[in-house]
């Protein structure tokens, strides 16, 4: 039985007022809030004269979505000073940059965290941990002097590369000149920035947010070709090489496959904005709204590789649709069916594939696989596919006992599958002692970073703690990059020194796990802004105790073995925990 607090039999305080006429407002439009209010018509004219835009045919753009409108509303002219960081490796961004004047330097080697204005993380010694505990403030989230990397004077916060001459030597960078485009792959694919780029001198750039970039790509063959070409050159080959099915192929075959591969995207890029509505919809409504990528019983036209995002694997079951599993980055769909068909047993697709949120896929046509991949399969993969073809049941790792299937439906519907460290609490073992909450507060300046409450299914609660998502939409739009991936393990962390309390991340987090907390002084009084008089706030969330010698305090503090931080991609481990 899935229980969502907002859908429980009685939802505290959510009764709509009786007898009040609904308020009428104009429906929100995409360009109600332009990317930059400072973009003038003269600026737009100047941009449209740029070689990258002057050759575009305006007539290809629909009247509701003209190129001029896109430039005016989805783009902004940004001026960067020498040494100013434009993008940082590992950060998530929602825009691309076109250099209009000046130049930028791509760092070949990642500068250190403090050079990039990132908090340096040092695991404290035992004595250090103990001393920190003794010195922790009486009140949660006490104001401290901010770092010097954020300059609040210039409107939008600016971050400068520290020790720029030392980092930006001629042999350590690649120069990008006027007319060059960068950042488009990370913006469209929601992948981290692959390099740090710094303004070489005073530089003018056109920043285009992803919505505009998507539309320009859609209506302009030149831009589509340019972006696809860049993807093929920079990302596709490495992506294909990382796919187990293709790993063994020679370089020329891989290039041939890359040339035949098609890019397809499904769902809403900013799915977090409609997520709450989707959560409250009925199961059937929710399913109907999920874009269908491939339909059960259709012939398999090609192999689908998930590049980013998640997809639901389901099949018809009487009058409904039963979720069998979910696919994430790097996983494939349709392989067994294609292989069986190639072996002479025409096999239609066994499952539906639906986009959960936003899914970016690569499509490799069946003919390419039949000619260049299947004949060269290594024996172990061949044997596995033969077995899958003979099996009548599913080869999907999710066990289909009643309990786990209900839980699977729940985590897919609520999209908790996004979590790399989802806090799951076994309510049949949890004694509600709150040792986990106290341990969190003791390790985080008296402010626990999660709430032991959340949606439940089958006696398992998904607590309101940061999931450290595979697709961290909270990072998109952070003006200072304060919220970032802290390491290779993918922890999402907020740097308190660069957080400006704008709450963009808290509003973007679909799971509501980021809290805006008013800062206090040592006496517990709120700290207010000089100019506005409003309380100064900071975004806080679980950091997975990344700087604690004992790891996540919540897990190690639970005496009843009731709490885990689960990587939802590790389906078998999750199953074992549910079945223990």
């Amino acid at each position, binding site marked *: 039985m899935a*229980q969502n*607090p907002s859908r*429980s*039999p*009685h939802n*505290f*305080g959510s*009764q709509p007022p*009786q007898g009040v006429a609904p308020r009428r407002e104009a429906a929100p439009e995409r360009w109600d809030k332009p990317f930059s209010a400072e973009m003038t018509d003269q600026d737009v004219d100047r941009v449209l004269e740029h070689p990258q835009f002057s050759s575009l045919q305006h007539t290809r753009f629909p009247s509701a979505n003209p190129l001029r409108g896109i430039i005016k509303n989805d783009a902004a002219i940004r001026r960067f000073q020498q040494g100013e960081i434009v993008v940082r490796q590992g950060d998530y961004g929602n825009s691309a940059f076109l250099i209009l004047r000046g130049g930028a330097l791509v760092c070949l080697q990642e500068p250190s965290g403090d050079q990039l204005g990132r908090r340096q993380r040092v695991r404290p010694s*035992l004595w250090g*941990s*103990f001393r*920190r*505990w003794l010195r922790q403030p009486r009140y949660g989230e006490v104001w401290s002097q901010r770092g010097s990397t954020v300059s609040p004077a210039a409107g939008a916060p600016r971050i400068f590369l520290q020790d720029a001459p030392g980092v930006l030597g001629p042999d350590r960078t690649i120069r990008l000149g006027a007319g060059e485009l960068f950042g488009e792959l990370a913006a469209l694919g929601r992948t981290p920035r692959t390099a740090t780029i710094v303004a070489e001198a005073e530089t003018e750039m056109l920043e285009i947010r992803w919505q505009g970039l998507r539309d320009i790509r859609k209506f302009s063959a030149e831009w589509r070709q340019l972006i696809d070409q860049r993807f093929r050159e920079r990302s596709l080959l490495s992506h294909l090489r990382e796919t187990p099915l293709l790993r063994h192929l020679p370089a020329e075959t891989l290039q041939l496959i890359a040339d035949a591969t098609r890019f397809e995207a499904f769902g809403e890029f900013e799915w977090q904005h409609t997520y709450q509505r989707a959560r409250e919809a009925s199961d059937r409504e929710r399913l109907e709204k999920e874009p269908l990528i491939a339909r059960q019983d259709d012939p398999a036209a090609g192999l689908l590789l998930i590049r980013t995002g998640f997809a639901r694997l389901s099949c018809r079951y009487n009058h409904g649709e039963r979720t069998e599993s979910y696919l994430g980055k790097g996983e494939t769909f349709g392989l067994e069916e294609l292989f069986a068909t190639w072996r002479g047993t025409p096999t239609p697709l066994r499952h539906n594939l639906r986009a959960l949120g936003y899914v970016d896929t690569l499509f490799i046509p069946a003919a390419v696989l039949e000619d260049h991949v299947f004949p060269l399969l290594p024996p172990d993969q061949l044997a596995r596919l033969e077995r899958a073809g003979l099996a009548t049941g599913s080869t999907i790792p999710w066990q289909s006992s009643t309990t786990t299937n209900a839980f699977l439906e729940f985590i897919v519907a609520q999209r908790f599958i996004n979590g790399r460290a989802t806090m799951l609490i076994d*309510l*049949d*073992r*949890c*004694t*509600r*002692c*709150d*040792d986990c909450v*106290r*341990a969190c507060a*003791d*390790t985080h300046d008296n402010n626990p970073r999660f*709430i*032991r*409450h959340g949606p*439940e299914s089958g*006696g398992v*609660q998904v607590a309101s703690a940061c999931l450290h998502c595979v697709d961290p939409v909270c990072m998109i739009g952070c003006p200072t990059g304060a919220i970032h991936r802290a390491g290779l393990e993918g922890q999402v962390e907020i740097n308190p020194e660069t957080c400006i309390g704008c709450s963009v991340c808290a509003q973007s987090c679909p799971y509501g796990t980021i809290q805006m907390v008013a800062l206090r002084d040592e006496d517990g009084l709120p700290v207010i802004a000089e100019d506005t008089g409003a309380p100064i706030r900071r975004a806080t969330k679980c950091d997975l105790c990344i700087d*604690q*010698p*004992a790891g996540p*305090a919540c*897990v*190690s*503090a*639970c*005496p*009843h*073995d009731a709490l885990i931080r689960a990587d939802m991609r590790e389906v078998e481990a999750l199953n*074992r925990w549910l*079945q*223990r």
Partner: protein
Amino acid sequence: MNTLRARRWLLSVVTLAAVLALTAAWWLGGIALRPVAKYSGELLVLLLLLLALFNVRKKLPFLPLGSATAWLQFHIYAGWLSVALFLLHAGPQWPRSALGFALWLVFLSVAASGAFGLWLSRWLPPRLTRSGESLVYERIPRLRHQLEDEAGNLVRQAETEAASSTLADFHRQVLAPYFARTPTLFSPLAEDDAAHHRAGHELASLRRYLSEREMLIADQLAELLEAKRNLDAQYAGQRLLKLWLFVHLPLTYGLLVLVAAHVWLVLHYSHRF
């Protein structure tokens, strides 16, 4: 066999083997005229100190002192072992001194409260889970007031819209006291939801006097009753799960003081013989 059950079996077998080994050692030591009371006393003091350290581990979550789960498992099974050791050490006779009697009484109280807490922490959580949405304990009083207000508002609405006092009378006599009450301390053990059933039953039998509009409000009141039932169950269950520790811990501190006195007396007087 699942992993939790396998762990329980393994640790139970190990503990039982340790109890048998200690009993055999006690018996053989007695035959060999070894000072078994001294040895068993020393071992018991060591065990009690290790058991008490669990609470220290809880206070220092930032230190890598091992998982609290491992500590609790040790606490449970070493606790059973210490009971067996205590019975061997104290012997079958009734304590002869006041201190001995106090020690005997407090030790068994600590062990009994621990065993009760262990049983409670395994028996009650699944019942709370089945009761309904899990609630944060500290928020429950506020939610109770919210429910009381909502019920009052609904009844006033019914009174105004239907020009009828049926629900208002029912609210005054049954609902208001029900929404205001807090469950008794041991109600989770008795699984006592009689008050909820009585209120629900009376609301259902009241329907024959209600208009259609009042029926809709009665449906909402029934939902509030269900919410109050879950709220009471969560509150009483969580309160009991917290309160047993307030018995176990002070008794433990008392036991440590008595043990220290016992050890001092033993050491003091042992030098005279």
